[in-house]
């Protein structure tokens, strides 16, 4: 059970949140070719290390935000609001 710090509410237990997959996935316009669209639909990062991902504080403020998490240690390295750029994190 992770401990995640909601940018609006502070630290809370994982069951209050919903996971939303990788962040910063740009949605292409609908005139792109099949291969580009398929990459958007199906291809995601699977890093051993820092992963930028979306979480929603479903049973709290219901706000979506971004988390940078180490997939090896599960350490939450950064929490930032939707629309903000990826933070610089030392590898």
């Amino acid at each position, binding site marked *: 059970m992770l*401990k995640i710090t909601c940018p609006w509410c502070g630290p809370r237990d994982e069951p209050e949140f919903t996971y939303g997959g990788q962040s910063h996935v740009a949605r292409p316009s609908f005139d792109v070719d*099949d291969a580009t669209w*398929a990459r958007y*639909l199906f291809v995601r990062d699977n890093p051993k290390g820092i992963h930028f991902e979306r979480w*929603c504080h479903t049973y709290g403020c219901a706000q*979506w935000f971004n988390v940078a998490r180490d997939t090896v240690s599960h350490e*939450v390295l950064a929490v930032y609001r*939707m629309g903000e750029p990826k933070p610089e994190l030392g590898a």
Partner: protein
Amino acid sequence: MASFQPDSHATPGLGLGAFRLAAGGRVDRAKVMNFRWDGRPLTACAGDTLASALLAHGERLVGRGFKFHRPRGILSAGAEEPNGLVAVGSGDRLDPSARATLVRVHEGLEARPQNCWPSVRFDVGRALDFVAPLWPAGFYNKTFIWPSWHAYEGLIRRTAGLGDALHGADPERYDVANATCELLVVGAGAAGLAAALLASRAGATVVLVEQDAEFGGHLLVESCAIDGLPAAQWLGRALAELAANPRVSLLPATTAFGLYDHGHVGLLERVAERTPTSPVRHRYWRVRARGLVLASGALEQPWVFERNDLPGVMLAGAVRTYAQRYAVAAGRRVVFATNNDSAYLAALDLARAGVAVPGLVDSRAEPPRELADLLQTAGVPVYGGAVIAAATGGSRLAAVEIAPLDGAGARLRLECDAVGMSAGWAPAVHLWSHARGRLAFDPERQCFLPVAGTAPLSVAGALAGAHTLSHCFASAARAVAAEASRAGFAVDVGGALPKVEEPRSSPRVDARRVSPGGRRHRQWLDFQHDVTLADVDLALREGFDAIEHLKRYTTTGMSVDQGKTSNLNALLVVAELTGRAPDAVGTTTFRPPYTPVTLGALAGRQVGEFYAPRRRLPAHAEHERLGAVFEEAGGWMRPAWYPRAGESKEQAIAREVLAVRASAGLFDASPLGKFEIEGPEAARFLDAFYINNVRTLEVGRTRYGLMLNENGVIIDDGTIARLGPQHFVITTTSGGAARIGAWLDDWRQCEWPDQDVVVTPVTTQWATVALAGPKAREILSRLGPDIDLSPAAFPHLHVRVGSLAGVPTRLYRVSFSGELGYEINVPARYGAALWRALEDAGREFGIAPYGTEALLLLRLEKGFLHVGLDTDGTTAPSDVGWGEIALKKQADYVGKRSLTRPENVRADRLQLVGLVGEDELLIPGTHLRLDGTTEGSDGWVTSAAFSPTLGKRVALALLRGGRARTGQTVTLFDLGRTGRAEVAPTPFYDPKGERLHG
């Protein structure tokens, strides 16, 4: 000479047991309790475990081996016990595979052995042992494959397995609790207590967890002095100080079973063990700790010698614990065998208690002088450079053969009825490993120790390699200092640590743990899964030399004890046989739980009626009055049908359907998902979700809409109503309300945060009643609407806002039944009143309430799809007849781009069709085959029923390339039976849709 308790207590003839020592121990001899073992009455003292009480009475045989059904006795005094797995209680309160070493005896306890039939003394399965050489590792994998495993499964399932599963519902009550603290200390032995004392004196909030019902760990058996006090007194003083501190929580009889992310630890508190009157049996604690000190101790490891599984062969520390703590002698003559110093203290305590100790056998050529002198003084001979070569006896130990390791000298036979053995200690690294902490092999101690700094917690005591109490206290101080800085509290650990007067000893453990020679298939590594040296030999011969492979091939450490007394020995044997360093062999993975956790504890109170909250409709009482049969759907208790006296389910549903077709019906549709979409960009926002054009929808009109995900798959449907230029209300399926609400909000927040739109879920703000049938308008008009209901003023697919009998209403002309229909929305508090008013107004027309079953049948007659039932995770608009509309819309919407992906335009997609036929196989789930297909499936029936309106069976199905197959016949296929049906156009009823304009 040994002084045993005379047999003259409690139940006549039983006494406290022939092996109960006359003095000493922590049990209360004045409180005698009666319990039953295998149906026979026995006695115990307050404080006894089942294991200590059985040993007190000389009950050596506690179970049978898993594979060969050999007789087995108690090995240990703790959670690591591999043999003493017993069934406690009976009926629904049966606790299978309980460890006799952890079960506290209470008055009236009933326990019996497992894995033996018909009895533990005479076991039919014992015959298996005589063919043991034919029954090697991997035997199952190799033997039971011809002609198939299933030919053998029944027989094997009857003789295999440990204990009986429960069949009834668990009648016990469980709790789940949450807690936070600055420091969690796991293990309340010397190190854990010291850590808790230091942190609590610094003002930190501390939770101290101890698996045993009593705090103290090793201090419960120590006879040395601490700070000038006997160990037991020092322990009492420490516990009193902790108990008096309100910032300290003490949790005895509690196991920390798993360590998870971010300082989250799972605890299982066996509440009823401490407080038998408690209504709660177990409590599952979810603790979030800022700092964590693990002081979980170490588990003594057994020697490997021939017939080391004979009842009476025990761990040296366990022999000491039974004598010191429970005042029970493991035998009348106890021989010790060791490769380290710790067994000397055990032998010394036994000798001092008056038990005959014919000798201590030390594999090291030079025994520790100070300890050896102490033993010699107590009259115990020490045999250096020697091992136990074999144990002998029938079903219980009679003697051991001592062999010198240098091969010079003759074998010596020592008669004995118990052995206390020690092949070193394996630190209980389980929780450390859960936290992904690294381990390294310590050649001096011959075990794996945590590598400090590789996990966000600290270790202390025997887990950190401490072998004396002084070392335990010092390691605790270091651990608390490290955790204080992690948790953010100030602590001074520089003060004087407790002073211990204990014999000097060394942590060194001899590398030898296997006696040379002997029959290898009679030298046990894993007592619980019956794995011998011969099994390891075979696995290595066959190439299973990776430790994870070897574990699975031989099943070493895979039983319920998870190898607590076998993994280290197996690993070191493999290292030796393959010439690799133990670090190179590596350990198998430690996974939670440390010891089994009752599933009921994890569920807590969320069982039965409390599993999930039940949602009741605003008019629930009206439905009850009408005798509705309720079914739970999406959390709602919904009327499924309303049987009248003497009616079957089918008759009731048919009557309800026919009433709607002939006159009028009333349906509670309140669970329909409802969302208000408001703002300057409301139309633009909604337009991005529907395949239907939302921007062109006029105020006062409604439109059916299909919603897709980005893969172009249908995820929901409902109506879109425009109440004003910037104001929409949409409905979703009842089951999809929460999911679609979250879906809209996800896109609004993450993809289009700049759009000026507000989404408000209002599902439970409005009660919704569907009034359907040719008499619907006439009935509704009697409720005094301020809305003109005439067909010209209020046609199909329109929406009006007004009032009914003075109550605000949103009135839709929509129809899921195919008849003239209204969906009447009123504020939820008027839901019951609206229902009653419509019932009254419709009585003279024969209005009938109808439930979800009739609703689904009405829509099936019309061929309307039910998302999730007639569609699956691949169904696109073109598969259900909405392809043209979806493609025609110019603007982008979620899923649009996917509709032209190659996968979505294949001709052989599964598509929704109607089916008709008289075959009894025309039921949901039946598979379909096209002519010419002999294998696999070309689709399946999704909805089917006998239509009371049409007098025939109708169905919907997903069929390969189905939309081009109208008029063809297909084969119905179900478990080898076949039938025929015809692909028919839909709607089955009123194909021109004239009735809904009524």
